[in-house]
């Protein structure tokens, strides 16, 4: 009997049926005739709080425009400290934040691209349309919770109970040979990870061993004949008429099943991890690399992973006074760069560098014009990194805006700003929709063109559908 995860979930006691299957398969899968080459994974890194991408990707040739907005308040990264990158499509030099040495190296190898001025949009929006309200704009702009939801659901108006990671999994997981969940999170169960069918498995990050990344104490190994273990499972199947009880049992049922499955996982080494010293994001990406190393044993052909790093809501003390290349934001970016670079190297070592694409999301960018506390406030469109062997790296991507390029005009009260007048702060209107960014990634993972509107309901409003940064 061959059951897919979808078949299992369709059973009435889905989470529970999945249990049995998962651990049986784990032991059997080495013998399965699965095409080992057919594997692809997306890795989402959420930069929580709203990353100031205005200090991540900085014009080098046109540095003075940037500096005039940020230098007086002490936030301009000095031109001499920028990590220079050549951007062919812009015909110009740009600079990365000096903390991003690892990503600069990968940029030079063509493994990293930047997608510019992306954000939630209800429909294509320019400054006149925004100011005259002749377009619909995303709900509660500049609010953390709303923009986080919009980035993760790709629904910028109204609400959605599922995220685009989960919906992408709904449409790509059919080729997975076991009931191991296609979406695995190192950072809880954000809406990005929730599909209509698929639900995320949340596990502990490294240095927790992979075979202990879920653990249920107090039972023998194997536990299957333990009366209390059996009763624990049976209790998850009763009282299904109470909505919240049913929801809790769904989560616990999957947890118990997958705990059982992961007992056989060991703790594979994934050099060059671990990082020294360890970091939060490094630990998360290390655990993801371990799971990827077991892709064949787990019977996976399509996977989505989620990791998150907080601290980006830099209203205050974003940089050190007098030394804008140092401080809170610089530390966070160093962590991101080191973890991403190491993760890329681990995928090379595992032979899957071209089969794994890593990308960033964040609440929003921050005001080009800082506030008076060496900090920045909430804005809108932001720049993002995409990394992997299949990335057509070393260039910018996106939809050109009013200045004819994908990179916004860094001028308060300029053609890309929501704000007007002398107090304008540079909250740039995205020219690229999260829908297009997500659709490019989802299509690469395997969502058919005809299915993209089911994952990105508003994708039809934007052109082009995908952005071409993946080969």
């Amino acid at each position: 009997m061959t059951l897919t995860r979808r078949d299992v979930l369709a059973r009435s006691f889905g989470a529970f049926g999945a249990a049995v299957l998962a651990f049986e398969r784990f032991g059997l899968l080495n013998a399965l005739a699965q095409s080992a080459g057919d594997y692809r994974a997306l890795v989402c890194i959420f930069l929580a709080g709203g990353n100031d991408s205005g200090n991540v990707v900085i014009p080098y040739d046109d540095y003075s425009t940037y500096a005039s907005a940020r230098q007086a308040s002490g936030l301009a990264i000095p031109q001499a400290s920028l990590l220079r990158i050549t951007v062919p499509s812009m015909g110009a030099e740009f600079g990365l934040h000096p903390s991003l040495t690892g990503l600069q190296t990968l940029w030079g190898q063509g493994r990293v691209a930047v997608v510019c001025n992306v954000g939630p949009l209800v429909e294509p929006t320019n400054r006149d349309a925004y100011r005259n309200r002749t377009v619909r704009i995303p709900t509660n702009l500049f609010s953390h919770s709303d923009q986080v939801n919009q980035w993760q659901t790709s629904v910028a108006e109204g609400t959605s109970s599922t995220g685009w990671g989960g919906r992408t999994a709904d449409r790509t997981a059919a080729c997975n040979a076991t009931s191991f969940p296609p979406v695995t999170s190192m950072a809880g169960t954000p809406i990005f990870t929730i599909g209509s069918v698929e639900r995320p498995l949340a596990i502990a990050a490294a240095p927790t061993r992979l075979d202990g990344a879920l653990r249920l104490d107090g039972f023998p190994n194997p536990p299957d004949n333990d009366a209390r273990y059996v009763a624990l499972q049976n209790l998850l199947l009763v009282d299904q008429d109470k909505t919240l009880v049913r929801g809790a049992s769904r989560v616990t049922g999957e947890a118990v099943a997958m705990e059982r499955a992961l007992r056989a996982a060991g703790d594979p080494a994934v050099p060059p991890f671990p990082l020294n010293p360890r970091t939060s994001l490094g630990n998360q990406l290390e655990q993801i690399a371990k799971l990827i190393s077991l892709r064949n044993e787990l019977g996976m052909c399509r996977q989505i992973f989620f990791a998150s790093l907080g601290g980006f809501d830099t209203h205050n003390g974003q940089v050190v006074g007098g030394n804008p290349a140092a401080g809170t934001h610089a530390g966070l970016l160093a962590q991101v760069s080191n973890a991403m670079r190491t993760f890329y190297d681990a995928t090379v070592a595992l032979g899957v560098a071209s089969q794994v694409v890593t990308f960033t999301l964040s609440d929003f960018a921050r005001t080009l014009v800082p506030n008076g506390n060496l900090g920045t406030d909430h804005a809108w469109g932001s720049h993002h990194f995409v990394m992997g062997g299949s990335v057509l790296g070393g260039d910018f991507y996106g939809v050109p805006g009013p200045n004819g390029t994908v990179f916004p005009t860094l001028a308060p009260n300029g053609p890309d700003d929501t704000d007007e007048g002398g107090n304008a702060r540079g909250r740039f209107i995205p020219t690229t929709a999260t829908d297009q960014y997500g659709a490019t990634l989802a299509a690469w993972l395997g969502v058919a063109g005809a299915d993209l509107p089911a994952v990105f309901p508003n994708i039809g409003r934007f052109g082009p559908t995908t952005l071409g940064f993946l080969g």
Partner: protein
Amino acid sequence: MESAVFRVCRTSFVGAALAFVLLANGVQGVDAQPSWPDTVRLLEQSTFGPTAPLIAYVQQVGFEAFLQEQLAAPTTDYPDLPFWPQNRPLTCTGDCARDNYTNDALQRHLFRNALYGQDQLRQRVAFALSQILVVSRVDIPLPSWMRGYQQLLYRSALGNYRQLLYDVTLHPTMGRFLDMLNNRCQTRTPPEPTVCRNGVRAQPNENYARELLQLFSIGTFALNADGTRRLDGGGGPIPTYDQRTVEAFARVFTGWILAPALPGPSEIGGTVPNYRDPMRARQDSRMREDYHDAGPKTLLDGFELRGGQSQTEELNAAIDNIAGHPNVAPFISKQLIQHLVTSNPTPAYVARIAAVFAAGRNSPTQLYEVARAIVLDPEARGDFKDPASEPQYSKLREPVQFITNILRAFNATSDGVLNSVSVGGSAIGSADMSQDLFNAPSVFSFYPPTARVPGETALGPQFAIFSSLTSLRRANFVNRVIFSTIPAAAPNRPTGTSIDLAAWDSLADDPDRLIEALNGLLLHGAMSNEMRDAIRAVVEGIPAANARARVRNAIYLIATSSQYHVQR
């Protein structure tokens, strides 16, 4: 710690448990006494968990008297922590570093207060408020800075909400967390000293203005009195404010700085920043409020501040403008209902509580009246909620509530070291279950009020931190405290945590009686027959001579069940 009144009225644990069995067998209590199941439910909603003596006591005095006593009960305190310098001196290590540079002491006290304090209602409401009016270690590195703010929430939990908003706004800890502290007016071009005497080139920080409106008071959409959204002619929601409003409030909230520095600890000397007293208006040498933006401002619903008033006058007017907004009553009332009783209140329930909130606007005990109305409301009360008619009624116990409910039910002895706990390689504290006390990831706290139950349309805010990982960690906590103990581990875990099951052993020879008594204490008698059968099979499989094993297995299965995770 325990009040005299509880001691006097204490009945034995088994006595109380048996009392329930008798009730369940049809022996009626005294007229007008609340039933055992309804009393258990009330205590789940209004305290950190029912105990057998407390159930018996509340049954005796009735709900109304119990709640009035709770209002009068002396306020629990956090320890008075000395103020140390922001940067830890190299001489401060070990216990000194733990006590003055981590939240350990506050976390222990929160748990001990919840386990043993008598002002349970106040603490429970304060805990809810701490998740609405959030500050976090993310930006408040010293426990002495955190302590005063949390004490303010204890003190104000049954007080007046407008006053609380004012006190929170001027609290230096909130000032630091959301950047109203040192927020400064923008110098005009050309300079206008009467508007901004000593400003900066940059614009005022918007952080506090935005989150005060979005999270602490009115929310982003206009609400009806029942908490549902008002709709415009096209059927769309109506924003309560826009970016211009945020910028106007950001200008109101300028000019506040820390009160004069405090003396440092005796070991160190010198002075340290004042995170004890309310922030004060910055003044220049001629006593002019030189950091404040004194220009006119347009606040909510077109309310005009004419400018030129004192900072304090403006602040009061701005807080009045917010507190007077019709959204506050339904916005805050619904969240308090969700924290105490059910994630899915009916609009009519929200409307009844919002009316109490609004009527109490000028009452010094407004939040008591709101909490009382929440737990005495017909929608909160009753012995049993029928899943056929109210399938979504209930809330998931959040980690702190889950931990304290179990420990209180079984007469635990604990040092309160329950936030971050690793025993035998297993992480089982509240932080490990994604509720790290005083260290929420952001001002959005641990979970959003809008989160849904996985796979359902019902709201279930606490499900946002109920994952495969945390679900099993909850089970592992139960496994640890029911089958063993959290052992003492010097120096940071002085006594550990252990429960007392001695009184339960005598019930173990009769599995039905044992299960029924646990059902009464943990599930207010609502256990289904299917659940009872599954547990009985396990209990009966253990020799009767092994009474404690029977008790432990039964408790484990109930306490780890979804039926117990969900307070219904």
